[in-house]
């Protein structure tokens, strides 16, 4: 009975607070999960380095604002551009040369890229935790009814929705987007149809990384501690989110992100004794999904041609 104390005694205000936190976290996971799902959809590979790109974006922001004293609105734009470029560079150097190599090689390369980024950050920025620059406008507390929430918690879902709408517009209503969808459906045919595969793949990484940068900035404001390994757990969870929603499916990634974000916050809210195990939640959901619906909630069932 004691175990369920938290569950039974929660007040409405408290619950609302947790819901806001859950939606915020879910939005951040969604933004990052999209990068994983888009890359997997086209290249059938897990971009292990994606989580570390989030980490690098946070460091870029730190340097822009805290070290070089560039106003935050300019810095954030710079961060998005720099991160998008970083994503494209990683694709060019670590993945493109191995496009015709056996699957495992690309996987190892992704791991290597991730490892390299983490070690570079550790070396360049030292392992000491740093503080993401504070933006008073966004980190101030706002009172809504009887609950206090950080302004950023309200901003996150809004920015996320705007980003998603922009992304869906690109994917569904532009030539580039159509090319991306074609490549993810059938690589070889798309190439034969005259689509420049290299450019489309670069574009995929650029878009995915830009979204990750947006997520990273908001993440940094919400959770200010930066270390070289900050991207690891979120990266794993966001990939799981993409799998849960249906790998290769953008809407699925968003759905998965929210499921994981909300679930994680609410489980710990209702059962505080489990807070040490909060990271395990994502993996348990992964196991359940792999057992009962391996292609994900919104995924399509495909059969391999023999």
């Amino acid at each position, binding site marked *: 009975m004691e175990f369920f104390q938290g569950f039974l005694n929660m007040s409405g205000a408290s619950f609302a607070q947790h819901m806001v936190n859950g939606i915020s976290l879910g939005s951040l996971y969604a933004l990052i999960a999209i990068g994983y799902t888009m890359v997997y959809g086209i290249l*059938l*590979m*897990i971009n292990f380095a994606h989580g570390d790109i989030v980490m690098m974006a946070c460091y870029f922001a730190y340097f822009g604002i805290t070290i070089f004293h560039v106003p935050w609105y300019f810095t954030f734009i710079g961060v998005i551009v720099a991160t998008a470029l970083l994503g494209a560079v990683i694709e060019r150097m*670590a993945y493109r*040369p*191995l496009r015709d*190599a056996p*699957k*495992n*090689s690309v*996987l*190892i*390369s992704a*791991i*290597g*890229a991730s*490892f*390299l980024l*983490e*070690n*570079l950050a*550790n*070396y*360049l920025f*030292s*392992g000491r935790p740093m503080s993401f620059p504070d933006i008073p406008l966004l980190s101030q507390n706002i009172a809504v009814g009887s609950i206090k929430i950080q302004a950023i918690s309200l901003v996150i879902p809004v920015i996320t929705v705007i980003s998603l709408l922009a992304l869906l517009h690109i994917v569904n209503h532009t030539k580039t987007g159509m090319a991306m969808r074609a490549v993810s459906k059938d690589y070889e045919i798309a190439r034969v149809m005259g689509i420049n595969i290299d450019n489309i793949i670069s574009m995929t990484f650029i878009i995915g990384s830009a979204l990750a940068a947006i997520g990273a900035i908001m993440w940094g404001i919400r959770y200010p501690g930066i270390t070289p390994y900050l991207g*690891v*757990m979120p990266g*794993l969870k966001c*990939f*799981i989110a993409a*799998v849960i929603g249906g790998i290769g499916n953008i809407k699925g990634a968003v759905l998965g992100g929210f499921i994981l974000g909300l679930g994680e916050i609410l489980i710990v809210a209702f059962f505080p004794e489990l807070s*040490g*195990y909060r*990271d*395990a939640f*994502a*993996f348990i959901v*992964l*196991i359940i999904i*792999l*057992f009962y619906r*391996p292609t994900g909630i919104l995924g399509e069932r495909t059969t391999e041609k*023999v």
Partner: protein
Amino acid sequence: MKNKRDLILSAILLIVLFCVSWFVNGELDSYVRRIVNLCLIYAIIGLSMNVTNGFTGQFSLGQAGFMAIGAYTVGIFTVPVELRANVFYAVPMNPLIAGIQMPVWLALIVGGLLAALVAFLIGTPVLRLRGDYLAIATLGFSEIIRICITNASSFTNGALGIKDIPPLNDVRYIFVVTAITFAFIAALINSSYGRAFKAIREDEIAAEAMGINLYKHKCLAFMISAFFAGIGGGLYGALLGTVDPKNFLFTLTYNFLLIIVLGGMGSITGSMLGAVIVTAGLEYLRIFDEPLEIFGTMIPLFRPGLRMVMFSALLMACVLFWRHGIMGTREITWSKLIAFCKNPLGFFKRKGASQ
């Protein structure tokens, strides 16, 4: 008969190496002994990873987690009972296990079996599905094992770690364990089951068509890999004398990935070569982490972290330019050595002609 000759030669080699380890144990200083021990332990774990990744083609990243299970089994059960209250000072040790003390060899085996059991539990859902997910799932589980260890304070002392483990740094002992591991795995790979593993690596559907139950064999490889990783982890814990959840971050697994990529995924001798290079490298590249002075000027590059940057760059370079590593899927066999000794130059010419 070729097989008898090979067996005798291998036995002689092992005896010679054992004598070498005796010498190292007695005559060389503790720093060198530690590196040799670490090298042997890394070889065990690297080889265990090769069983799944190299021979069966299943990409697993869970070695750190299985090591942790083995290390903690040794940690929990070999600390003398009298000292335990001192170690478990924050949260007392769980009464179920507080009184159980085992000799190291038993703790190693128990640790290995526990790791294999966990591998079975993880493998059951994940091995039935596409290979890509195995990497993420095993990586995640490795972290979850660590999280559980950090939280189960009454069993593992949580984040405080366990100290006062009776140290095990006898090179001969560790050599024997390493030799047994290598001998067993070599024998397994050269058996029908080993060939079944390779078949799965080459073409899963064709392997299935030949009657090889994919799930059963992948699970077997996974469990054997975990068993030996657990043993390696147990030795690791005993060598260090303490265990701490932070020792077993997933980044530890990357060291072993480098070992097998460098040595050759799918080569037993490659695992040993890779282990030697990586262990020696990790030690001797420490100089890169220290500030370097040449003629009184500080070179700005050299500070903590450079060593690992170079290592990750090495991993990238390997996979991009040298995918097969040193040995690829080949082995150094007695036949080849003898042919080489008889005709050193002709050995390489002949290889070229048959290409």
